[in-house]
């Protein structure tokens, strides 16, 4: 039996490894060719150089796109943090039967095709005569990132002991103070992780951005326009940058989640201890 289990284990391991290679090798190649010394994007690899990095960073349009993208991602993270926390808190704390409907509505943007969101947003903005700008991109990004934040925040808030808020109220805290001093500190690491996710969603959003960007540009739009004109490693440089930022944020969100989970486990253990 164990030999057979070993064989299936080996097969499973191989399969997993193949999938990972399949997923990661293209990313590795993109990163590798961002350092290519020649303009060619195909093998053979002719040597390392940082010339494409210098070229890209010397490019005014790129710097603007990078700056716009970071600004947008930061603003999207901040907006979803405020709206998403408020929505998740409202849904978890209201005893109303409408709370379930609220959850469905807040999650709706995830299920809609981005193309549809982009067109709908464009039509709506035209109707109310808002000019396309970074602000309209921000609105689009917030709509898309919101459900991701909301989902995570809701789970975190639902796991909290509502008795702690009552204890705070009993000790003289108004509802807002109780939220600020008792509820928020307990879920803050998770919310920070969720905000990092919103940041990532904004950073590489393309479809909706394409519709509502007007004359503005972001990193994904910059890559897209570059692809149509010049095919050289400068695109790899931008992609590698995007990838690196995303990876760093992902690790951050992950670590925040793990820390929150550990703290929760410790608390559960101590509670169990108290009961025994």
């Amino acid at each position, binding site marked *: 039996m164990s030999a057979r289990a070993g064989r299936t284990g080996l097969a499973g391991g191989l399969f997993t490894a193949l999938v990972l290679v399949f997923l990661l090798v293209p990313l590795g190649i993109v990163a590798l060719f961002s350092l290519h010394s020649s303009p060619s994007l195909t093998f053979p690899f002719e040597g390392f150089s940082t010339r494409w990095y210098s070229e890209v960073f010397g490019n005014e349009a790129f710097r603007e796109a990078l700056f716009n993208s970071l600004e947008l991602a930061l603003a999207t993270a901040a907006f979803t943090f405020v709206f998403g926390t408020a929505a998740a808190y409202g849904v978890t704390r209201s005893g109303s039967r409408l709370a379930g409907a609220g959850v469905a509505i807040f999650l709706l943007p995830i299920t809609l095709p981005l193309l549809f969101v982009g067109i709908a947003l464009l039509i709506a903005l035209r109707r109310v005569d808002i000019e396309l700008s970074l602000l309209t991109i921000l609105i689009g990004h917030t709509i898309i990132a919101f459900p991701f934040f909301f989902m995570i925040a809701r789970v975190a808030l639902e796991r909290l002991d509502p008795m*702690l808020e*009552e*204890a705070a109220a009993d000790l003289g805290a108004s509802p807002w103070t109780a939220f600020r001093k008792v509820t928020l500190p307990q879920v803050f690491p998770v919310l920070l992780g969720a905000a990092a996710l919103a940041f990532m969603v904004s950073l590489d959003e393309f479809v909706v951005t394409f519709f509502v960007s007007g004359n503005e540009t972001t990193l994904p739009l910059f890559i897209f326009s570059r692809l149509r004109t010049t095919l050289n490693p400068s695109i790899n440089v931008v992609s590698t940058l995007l990838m690196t930022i995303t990876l760093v944020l992902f690790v951050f969100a992950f670590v925040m989640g793990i820390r929150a989970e550990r703290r929760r486990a410790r608390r559960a253990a101590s509670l169990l201890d108290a009961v025994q």
Partner: protein
Amino acid sequence: MSSATLSFRGIGHSYVEGEPVLREIDLEVADGEFVTLLGASGCGKTTLLRIAAGFLAPSEGAVFLHGEDVTAVPPHRRAVNLVFQRAALFPHLDVYDNLAFGLKLAKVPKGEIAGRVREALELVRLEGYAHRRSGELSGGQAQRVALARALINRPEVLLMDEPLSALDLRVRLEMEAELRRLHRETATTFVYVTHDQHEALALSDRIAVFDRGEIAQLGTPAEIYHQPASALTARFVGDANVLPGEDGLTVLRQEDVVLRASSDAGEVPAGALRGTVRDVGFRGAGYSYVVQCPQLPEPVKAEVPSDAGPPLGIGAAVTVSWDPALTRTLPGEDEA
């Protein structure tokens, strides 16, 4: 009785579309008194406590604090504090900051806060625990911190919702003594909710026995124990036998039952009943018996001191008797 600190007048409450959980509750708690609301789960005692704390608005009636109607005052503006069933300490704060929480909100000067936290920790005998996290405390310690966190605000009334129910027996007995001492030393008015009759008897100045949303009896522990007003109180508080008598119900406490092995006497003495031992358990100081008597609708419970000899076996034939002077007769039918 001196002036009432906390009064409930005509309190009624029903949750949405349900049976009323509280009906016409009138209760006055005197200054410095220790009153326990005792009852089985679902009898409305916790609902009344939450109404006192301000977490629930009663459907009917009003709550008064020192004669002032506070029914519409939200919990954070009421001069009462509640100790929860679980300690409900803030996990992200250490003991010091848990205790200082209410004082900081009340804008008490920093220097004074430090002094009062120290006093409160001394009061619950946890000097040196100021910088522990709530996760590093035992159940009993956490509940003592919760008590200190409530008392440090010098509430008009300290409300407690089964604060000992999550603790093990040894810690619970320790905490009972601790509560009596805190009550004496702080001279604060205590309102305590429990389903444990031993706790109620051991702690209270007065007990209000709750039955299905109403106060079935209100009195001192001795009154409640010795003069139960209803079969429910007799059963619930004294764990007594309630037997059908000539004019009403006879309340017979377990320790007043006399059990004799039948072989002792050939025939049954006058007033005694024949019976069979169905169960026997060792309780340390005594044996507790369950005896089935053919003449009675339900088994008789009896407690016999354990130093009176070895226990009777299950199935043993016995006679059951008692001194009628030790029983109490209740009018009316048995509802329970």
